[in-house]
């Protein structure tokens, strides 16, 4: 009996240990582009019910990596992981419903899935759910909820949520008076992540001195960055700024624009 008691934890360890290692072996293989090995490691784990592995198997089928692309199989794996409330699977399943990939578009189901993912603070889910509330997709419009979702996603650094939050503060909403200082702050945060529209809007705030002190050099820098990426709304602002600035100011703005590069890989990046 005593021997059995000693053996049992060892057995449990032996079962749990390789399972953990297999996932990471699969992950390394995946990152090396060896999709066949990744599937060999993740497949059995997924079948045993590991939600991360189930989710990743969904990715392999949705992207056609190591297997022929099959959105039905992807959906089926994501549904298994979503049944365990695994947030990334809830999110991707919602995206399939919104895009109508392999099924008819279904915004109402997507909204419900996103509510479950957003409750786990998944930034991309918070943002998309905010959009659905703002645009009455999959249910009635709820501006208050949209504002809440964008606020939360923005705090996680989601660039598009930050831009949308900036618009909320700039334009105001029922129960939310316009607040130009907050608008400028969120446009700036999104602009710094390379969000082109936010760069144009932030340049406007700086040029007008709305919500922050007027700063032509910074304004021109952001207007140039936005215009240079094809954002038409920034072209007029850039022109107007150039005519009222000194050559030294313009040179400074150009140097700052040239030195700018957004950090890679931020969530909700442009």
């Amino acid at each position, binding site marked *: 009996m005593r021997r059995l008691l000693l053996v049992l934890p060892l057995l449990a360890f032996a079962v749990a240990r390789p399972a953990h290692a297999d996932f990471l072996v699969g992950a390394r293989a*995946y990152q*090396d*582009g060896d999709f066949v090995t990744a599937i060999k490691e993740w497949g059995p784990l997924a079948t045993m019910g590991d939600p991360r592995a189930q989710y990743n198997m969904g990715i392999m089928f949705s*992207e056609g990596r190591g297997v022929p692309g099959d959105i039905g199989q992807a959906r089926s794996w994501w549904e298994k992981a979503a049944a365990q409330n695994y947030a990334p699977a809830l999110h991707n399943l919602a995206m399939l419903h919104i*895009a109508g990939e392999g099924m008819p578009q279904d915004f109402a189901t997507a909204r419900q899935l996103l509510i479950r993912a957003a409750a786990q603070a998944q930034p991309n889910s918070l943002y*998309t759910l905010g959009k659905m509330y703002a645009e009455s*997709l999959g249910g009635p419009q709820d501006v208050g909820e949209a504002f809440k979702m964008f606020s939360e996603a923005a705090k996680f650094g989601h660039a598009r949520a930050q831009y949308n939050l900036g618009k909320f503060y700039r334009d105001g909403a029922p129960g939310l008076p316009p607040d130009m200082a907050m608008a400028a702050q969120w446009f700036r945060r999104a602009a710094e992540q390379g969000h082109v529209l936010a760069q144009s809007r932030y340049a406007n705030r700086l040029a007008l001195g709305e919500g922050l002190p007027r700063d032509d050099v910074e304004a021109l820098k952001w207007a140039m960055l936005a215009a240079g990426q094809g954002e038409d709304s920034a072209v007029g602002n850039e022109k107007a700024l150039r005519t009222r600035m000194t050559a030294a100011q313009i040179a400074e703005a150009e140097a700052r624009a040239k030195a700018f590069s957004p950090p890679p890989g931020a969530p909700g990046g442009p």
Partner: protein
Amino acid sequence: MLSRRVLLAGLLAVTSPALAQDTNGAVRFMQGLSQQAIATLQAANYSPEQREQNFRHLLAQGFDLDFIGRFALGRTYAQLTAEQRNDYAQAFNEFVLRTYSRRLGGYSGERFEILGARPAGDQDAVVASRIVRGGGPPIMVDWRVRATGGNYKVIDVAVEGVSMVLTQRQDFTAAVGSGGVEGLIAGLRARGDRLPAVTR
């Protein structure tokens, strides 16, 4: 009347070699683009995500996505507000880049051959190519290329004779009919907004 005919003949004489010239330019452009694409896809020491990122960059340079996006939306485009146009352009570009970089990012070992080119319409050239695969029959792909401002850009891709932009136009018209423009934009965005594999 005679002078007009002479003028016309003169114009033709000038235009025809220019068109032939354009077709050569389009072929060279496609050769360059495909070589870069293959180099990107075969680059060692890159994760799938990095490779996808590099490939996206290449597509963004080689395709006139604004033009394709406007065409795909057809008459509806004129009815959009400025904000919606921005949203749409962003969502559409993202959608195309992701779709194609995903579709092509996983490929390897295929051979890309340019078969020739012909003028199309007043200003375009269609570059015919085929992708030779190990397993199945080769895939015929036509690239419609337009020179704007001295730069060549792809404005349509036809796989086995099926035009990408025409197919998209049909799909988009149907989507706008059922879910409105906001529904279409949300749908496009959703394809690009899926999360990647978890590796930790």
